[in-house]
């Protein structure tokens, strides 16, 4: 899952957690110019897709690159 609060998500037992931006806007940042926001959103989703393809044995955090 993509979460603004990975510590909470992992304690609740989510296996693959992607670091989101902020509670108010988990999957992007409206403070960025539109093109920058679009790139950030794409990176978050791509990280999530990569996480889905990764084998994990315990709740694992995936940082957005």
């Amino acid at each position, binding site marked *: 899952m993509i979460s603004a609060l990975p*510590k*909470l998500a992992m304690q609740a037992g989510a296996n693959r957690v992607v670091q989101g931006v902020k509670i108010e806007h988990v999957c992007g940042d409206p403070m960025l110019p539109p093109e920058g926001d679009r790139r950030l959103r794409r990176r978050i989703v791509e990280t999530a897709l990569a996480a889905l393809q990764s084998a994990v044995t315990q709740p694992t955090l995936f940082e957005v690159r």
Partner: protein
Amino acid sequence: MSDFELELRSFAVSGANFGDRSYWHDGQLVIDRETVAGLVLADSRVVRVDLDLVNPGEDVRIVHVRDVIQPRTKTAGRGHAYPAIAGHSPETVGGGATDCLEGFAVMICADVPHQIRREVSAAADSLVDMTGPGAVTVYSRLRYLVLTMETMPDLPLSSWNDALREAAHRVADHLASTTAGQTPTSSRRFALPPASGLPKLVHVHTLNASMVPGIGTSIYGYARHALPLLLHPNEILDGAIAGDAVVTYPGSCTWIQVNNPVLTALYDRHGVDFDWLGCIVSRTRWGAAVEKELSAYQTVKLAQMLGAEAALVTWNHGGNDLLEVMLTIQGLEKAGIKSVFLTIESDIKVVRLTPELAETGTDEPPLLFSVPEANAIVSTGTLAPETALPAVSRVVGGSDIVFDQERPEYRTPAAGPLDLEALSGAYSPIFGHFDNYGLGAQTYVDF
């Protein structure tokens, strides 16, 4: 006298009535209706006001409750009670003398304009029952002058908040002035002289800040998220922390800030069991994980710089605020500062508390998040009525209640029986149901 030595002079109110002039005498508060109405309507944004007196034990339900304000006024020393809001001076308070009306409060009631319901989910409806199974909170035990106000339509959020809150503070200031020059019912001196040789203790007073800018609890009027601040407890007794007229979450009420039993309990034991250093007020409900961590780190740093050896950690809210609270406890313990956490069991879905549920809990954890270092926790439980609320003979503050903020067009008549569990979903609409500091009427013995 030090800058932070405060004489709090309490004038008990054992009865309140309307009369042709406002005065306090021997426990009786008489309120001049016309003066009060004039003070409320002095701001053209408020177009109408109803005035009602409500007493504990009466068969009354108060609805559309927005805030509860205890009249307090400075009679010596710097500044104005409830500083930096409602046009009051921002000068630092906490010293000299303050008069207060004990057991009495001015209550703001107002229906929420449609556009504000859409804008702020926290501007929800809440109620206070003065008797019966719903009378579980401290707010069922106070006497009120209820101001039911109607504002000009389409006021922006901040203007709506200011109009309601400023009107109530004008009235509270007027009523607080009735005790001038009289002998108080009781009086207590609050000061923190150094108590050398005893363990140094700090109160880590975490305080929710609204995610909607400009509303919610404020410190000297400053409502936005900010890094932690050191307050003398007397500043808080003088109203440095205040609520607003928008957010009805229990811990944001103005009354609870100045009547926080944690402060008097710590004063009772200062110089006896520990050396109380003061209150670090840390805002909670930051939006980003890194902000939560930063706030926790800075809170711990302040405690270390003060030389604290122990900390009492409190919070006034629920939900994701618990992350920074728990990270703070973790940091304090790692820094060698022994910490105790005072908390509700933040299972917000408890709207109706049956004996079985009190015994076994729900299937949800009592705390949303925890750290291994949080190993000393005092629970104030979960406040909720055992049964549905019965019909009442008199309703004050409005005539109906919105239970679902997403569907404000669905309104439930307030005078009838209310099955809160069926009507209100996750959140209890009982004002004050998050009993963060343990003032509620229910104890485990009740169950």
